[in-house]
């Protein structure tokens, strides 16, 4: 089983790699789009802003490869934080730097990525720290995780999917924040599982065990 962490820019890649190592799962840090072909499982982390990251992904040929792997070859993908947001159709973060209103995402799960302010959050931004997640229908990604477990969040933007059925779990801040999203083999988590202690490691394991 080949697991790859997509390194398209800068970011804390080592943590995801180290997290996989805790359950003896070897992984590769993928720095060239063509290397995606060798993978069975894709992990897309992300630090930075939506528009800039998408610009890099488009420019360097990642977008095309990722879409081909996920759509045509049905390879499972796990987006983490910004990596999850990039699965959306559109994102508003940083679009103005490119003289646009919004930036096109991968469009793997219909929806938009909006700022916490725009969904009515009146708390301190970024939403930073441990917050519990809740869900109504169980999903494989949460196997073995107890309800109301805290996960580590650090973000200022939120994935608002067009189809509510794609929301697997939410967190409140104080508006509902999409914490886990899934559509078939396309999964995403807004929190950082690699930094959410034992429960977070379990989520990563569940992704590989699906």
């Amino acid at each position, binding site marked *: 089983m080949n697991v790859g962490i997509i390194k398209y820019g*800068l*970011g*804390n*890649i*080592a*943590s995801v790699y*180290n*997290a996989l190592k*805790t359950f003896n799962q070897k992984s590769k840090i993928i720095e060239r789009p063509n290397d995606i072909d060798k993978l069975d499982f894709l992990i897309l982390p992300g*630090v*930075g*802003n939506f528009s800039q990251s998408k610009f890099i992904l488009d420019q360097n040929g990642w977008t095309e490869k990722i879409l081909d792997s996920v759509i045509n070859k049905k390879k499972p993908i796990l987006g983490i934080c*910004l990596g999850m947001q990039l699965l959306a159709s559109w994102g508003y973060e940083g679009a103005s730097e490119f003289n646009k209103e919004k930036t096109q995402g991968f469009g793997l799960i219909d929806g938009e990525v909006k700022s916490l302010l725009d969904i009515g959050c009146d*708390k*301190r*931004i*970024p*939403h*930073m*720290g*441990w*917050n*519990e997640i809740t869900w109504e229908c169980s999903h494989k990604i949460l196997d073995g995780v*107890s309800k109301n477990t*805290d996960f*580590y969040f*650090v*973000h*200022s933007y939120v994935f608002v999917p067009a189809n509510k059925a794609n929301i697997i779990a939410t967190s*409140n*801040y104080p508006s509902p924040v999409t914490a886990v999203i899934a559509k078939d083999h396309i999964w995403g988590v807004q929190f*950082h599982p*690699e*930094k*959410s*202690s*034992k429960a*977070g*490691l379990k989520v990563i394991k569940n992704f590989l065990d699906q």
Partner: protein
Amino acid sequence: MLKVRIIPTLLYKDFSLVKGIGFDSWRRIGPILPAVKIFNSREVDELIFLDITSTNKGINPDYESISELSKFCFVPLTVGGGINSIEQVDKIIEIGADKVSINTACYENPQIISDVANRFGKQCVVASIDVRFENNEWICYKNSGLKKTNKTPLEWAKELESLGAGEILITSIDRDGLMKGYDQELISLLTNNLRIPVVASGGAGPFDDLYDAVSNSKASALAAASIFQFTQNTPNDIKKFLKKKGIPVRLNS
């Protein structure tokens, strides 16, 4: 509900974990890696790792140690000490840190805050401010408390916030290491005037005072060092106490 974070601060100097009083008289506590392993196994909320010598020696952060520590840290890790360029931040984030704490370099080149925020997002930037109370006013110090600046903490914190800092780590040098309580007024001054989270630091000790820092002074997180190194108290002890008083905390099962 978002939890109040309890954050052990690990200060290090010449490869050892140290702790001082008033940013001085450093005591060597032991090697740093076992401390990280213990805090990780106790599932702490977050760790702050500060190299107190890099800036004053004018050397790069100790990448090897940071990389080694991050291998055992599955909770968020903030790394600081000696950071003055975006290239250093790239490297620190790449080897496993989640956030960087920048202090002295901000006074010389405030733009570094914006540069890091633009590259990695605001959430990655912790602006750290060290403060002494002198002649009836708070004044900011740089270089691990060695050099006085002309900034007062509120104006400086606001400036750092507008530059793109995602969080302010405010430390009272006067109270550091005494375990007699935070400078509550200083914390309130910032939390009342900033939109970003404020981490209280310097003086953590009495549990009632920790509670005050959250309930009255509105700190989003509490950083502490001495109480974890020189007393039997653990982060979980503090959290149990806060929880009884109605503060949302993350308790380990």
